[in-house]
């Protein structure tokens, strides 16, 4: 199969292409130097061409996503669409069904999405859902931050065992990388408590969140995993938590990256750049985070942008969800996973006239606009925590147009003026910035820039064409057009196949599931497994033989190899 | 003598152990019965007697059994076709019929207990 995209106005940041009229040749699902004259041709007619969108942090599959669906029939009915000849029925707004998940991402020109948190013990469920999300490539990050083996090995200061455990845990869960959520807090939530900072000691395990974060960063680099540690900071959801976030970022200095990427990705900053001491003096400290990012080299973040309207908060941070439910008098699902982590799901409605929400809306934007390098701030909504992913085009429009921001600010609670810097920020991002924040940056942060997030030869032929002519539009003024163009791609091409045309699904191939197979010396695994076997014998409620995710749950696997880097290299 | 009771239905281990073997006499023995405490049983007769259980929704003949965990006036029939002959079909706006808390009358009878096949045949 050959395809040629002609006359596109191409934005391909990692190859330095900024709006040049470049042709893209595709053969057998990859981008190639050139194609034969038999290739079918898409004439982009000067329209915007970008690599397929990549999302490094979204909640698209697994136990908590499904709990969101089960507890929210009122959300399910909000997005109903009957089946068609090509598509299965779609449901939901904040918690779409598996089909809507794939179709709606594809309709926005996205082709790769990573689920941000799975407990190993519930990974089989995650993969069952990933297996049914059509079109997009996907993967899932695995939780390690409160696992008993993690804390035991951290306390023993045995990085070989910890590395072996991480490698084994990724295999067991078919996971892509290390997710660390409120480290130590998940364990403490087992008895209804929480850690309050990086130096609290987790009872019975005698480690601190700081120890856990640093150790996980070390083994992440020992293993040379494609992605870095992906951190949801302690104290999330508490006013004043920006200090914890900055202190967590500071820890990254202790570890050298094993490859050309960050050593720490701090996620959904909207929820952890909070100033003030209570809800009364609550304010944005996104500027402080941006300032830190501007002066450091090995940390990346994502926005977790807030979208007004309905959202469903879901996270492995169990205690924060209990606090949310109590504060909002909302329904609450909790999902502790034995020996591993916690989780919670709580619906929320973000209202423009609620001061906290207005301030939070500003935080993600401030972070993105005050941080100079767009590779350091990825565009996310922490779907569906800040709001559903279908609102990315709204965020793009806000980032590209100060006019739109000012119009929006007029409709918000006045706190947005006093407690945030957003009204005075004039910066407007360009298409290159947006391409980084929605594609190249994500791919780089995930360590997948070889095949994802760019349009160079050898890349996967995942491409989006939008109905915008970059040289004929002023995004600052015509922000509504920007938004609608990004909502509904003129073409989405996935693995060389046209899957969306004029915003409509035209084909529903199955994407691949990425996971990382990391090698460690056998003797490390053997020693580590002694502990693991003991834990299964005494503590787990299932047997070790039934724990690992079987091959049957990855019908289209894409294995990324990694492993312990020999001492002389590291 | 007719005993007025509140009827509940539910699982038992023998009902469960024979659930995939519904044509067997074991299943019938496990489920075609009605448990009352010994005081209530004595009001009617003896354990092992056939009793007719009647509700607004139907009637069924089952074997009388003793279970002293039951308070006075509470009858228990293991879930299954015999119990379901007399439960309340109303789903109360939420899809769930009334399998528990049904006012019922129980009396001893000489009628025989129908086999599962015969019981279902009544519905045809």
């Amino acid at each position: 199969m050959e395809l040629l995209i002609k006359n596109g106005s191409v934005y391909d940041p990692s190859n330095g292409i900024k709006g040049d009229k470049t042709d893209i040749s595709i053969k057998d699902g990859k981008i190639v130097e050139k194609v034969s004259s038999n290739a079918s041709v898409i004439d982009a007619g000067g329209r915007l061409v970008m690599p397929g969108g990549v999302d490094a942090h979204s909640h698209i599959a697994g136990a908590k996503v499904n709990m969101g669906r089960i507890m929210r029939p009122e959300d399910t009915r909000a997005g109903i669409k009957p089946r068609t000849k090509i598509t299965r029925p779609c449901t939901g707004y904040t918690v779409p069904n598996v089909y809507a998940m794939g179709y709606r991402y594809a309709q926005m020109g996205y082709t790769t999405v990573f689920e941000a948190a799975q407990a190993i013990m519930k990974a089989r469920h995650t993969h069952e859902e990933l297996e049914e999300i059509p079109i997009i490539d996907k993967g899932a990050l695995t939780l390690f931050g409160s696992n008993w083996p993690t804390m035991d090995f951290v306390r023993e200061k045995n990085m070989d065992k910890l590395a072996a455990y991480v490698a084994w845990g990724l295999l067991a869960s078919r996971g892509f990388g290390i997710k660390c959520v409120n480290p130590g807090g998940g364990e403490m939530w087992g008895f209804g408590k929480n850690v309050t900072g990086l130096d609290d000691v987790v009872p019975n395990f005698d480690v601190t969140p700081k120890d856990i974060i640093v150790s996980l960063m070390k083994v992440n680099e020992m293993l040379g995993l494609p992605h870095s540690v992906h951190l949801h900071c302690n104290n999330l959801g508490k006013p004043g938590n920006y200090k914890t976030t900055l202190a967590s970022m500071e820890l990254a200095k202790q570890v050298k990256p094993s490859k050309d990427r960050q050593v720490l990705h701090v996620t959904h900053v909207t929820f952890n750049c909070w100033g003030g001491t209570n809800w009364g003096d609550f304010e944005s400290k996104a500027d402080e985070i941006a300032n830190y990012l501007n002066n450091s080299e090995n940390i990346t973040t994502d926005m977790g942008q807030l979208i007004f309207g309905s959202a469903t908060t879901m996270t492995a941070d169990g205690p924060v969800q209990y606090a949310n439910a109590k504060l909002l008098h909302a329904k609450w699902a909790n999902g502790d996973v034995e020996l591993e982590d916690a989780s919670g799901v709580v619906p929320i409605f973000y209202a423009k006239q609620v001061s906290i929400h207005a301030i939070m809306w500003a935080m993600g934007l401030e972070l993105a606009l005050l941080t100079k390098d767009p590779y350091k701030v990825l565009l996310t909504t922490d779907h569906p925590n800040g709001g559903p992913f279908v609102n990315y085009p709204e965020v793009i429009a806000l980032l590209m147009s100060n006019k739109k921001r000012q119009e929006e600010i007029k409709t918000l609670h006045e706190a947005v003026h006093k407690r945030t810097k957003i009204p005075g920020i004039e910066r407007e991002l360009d298409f290159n910035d947006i391409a980084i924040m929605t594609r190249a940056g994500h791919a780089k942060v995930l360590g997948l820039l070889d095949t994802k997030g760019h349009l160079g030869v050898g890349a996967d032929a995942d491409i989006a064409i939008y109905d915008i002519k970059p040289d004929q539009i002023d995004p600052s003024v015509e922000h509504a057009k920007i938004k609608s163009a990004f909502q509904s791609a003129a073409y989405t091409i996935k693995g060389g196949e046209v899957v969306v045309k004029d915003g409509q699904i035209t084909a529903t191939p199955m994407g691949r599931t990425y996971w990382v197979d990391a090698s460690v010396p056998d003797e490390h695994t053997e020693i580590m497994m002694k502990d693991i076997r003991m834990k299964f014998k005494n503590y787990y409620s299932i047997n070790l033989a039934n724990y690992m995710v079987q091959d049957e749950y990855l019908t289209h696997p894409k294995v990324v190899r990694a492993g312990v880097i020999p001492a002389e290299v590291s | 003598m007719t005993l007025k009771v509140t009827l509940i239905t539910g699982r038992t281990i023998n009902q469960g152990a024979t659930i995939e073997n519904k044509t067997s006499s074991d299943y019938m023995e496990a489920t075609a019965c009605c448990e009352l405490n010994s005081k209530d049983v004595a009001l009617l007769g003896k354990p092992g007697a056939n009793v007719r259980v009647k509700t607004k929704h139907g009637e069924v003949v089952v074997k009388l059994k003793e279970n002293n965990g039951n308070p006075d006036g509470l009858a228990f029939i293991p879930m299954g076709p015999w119990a379901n002959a007399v439960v309340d079909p109303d789903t109360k706006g939420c899809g769930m019929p009334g399998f528990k808390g049904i006012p019922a009358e129980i009396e001893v009878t000489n009628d025989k207990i129908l086999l599962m096949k015969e019981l279902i045949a009544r519905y045809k």
Partner: protein
Amino acid sequence: MQTVTLKPIKEIKISVEAENISPDKFAGKTEKDIQSLEAWMGNQKTTLGELFSVKAEGSGAAADTKIVMDGNFSRIKRIGEGMTAGLIIIKGNVDMHLGAKMSGGKISVTGNVDSWAGREMKGGELIIEGNAGYYLGAGYRGETCGMRGGKITVLGNALDFLGEHMCGGEIIVKGNAGILPGLSNNGGKIVIEGNTSRPGSEMSKGTIIINGLVDEMMPVFKAEGTEAVDGVTYRKYTGDVIVNGKGVLYLK
């Protein structure tokens, strides 16, 4: 002024979803237009004309549209759903979701209505001369708000969960009500002339007046002595204390 008369022309066993029977949908349409409006019987798409004889006289906006339904409609769901104005007069029984989400106009029924009548109703009036089913004036699964405004009057009885999650409006039941009326009442007014049981659980706001007997009282109300309402003396209770509720329950 437009008057549309619908009469059943066949016995209907499988429920029909007929949200198109509404003054908003009929307004300004010809008899033929109305006959061709879509309805669903089970998984079969059909039309109003296939199911009913349709007679239309005059023409007018929704507010000037009167729909007269004469006969047995006990398998016709969603009549008057979302209507904003006009009048529906039903001489007979109807199925579920009558007047769901309606925000204006008036529906009156001489017979019985099945469950979810007035679901998520925002305004207008619903008069039921017979009995109502479950969840009268309630919400949809998982929503925090049921009825928000308008008025429902039932001359007969209503079943369980009436006014569940009510956030506003008024429900009057002349007969008895099933269990748990006014559950999670958050600002509506409910009057039950007959008997009921377990009223007002989890109510945070609103008023429930019961003139008949209360079979079982929820153990969550504070007795506040007596108070006269429209000249009648009631025992007054406030609660639900669990949710720090400011709801008021008046019992005779």
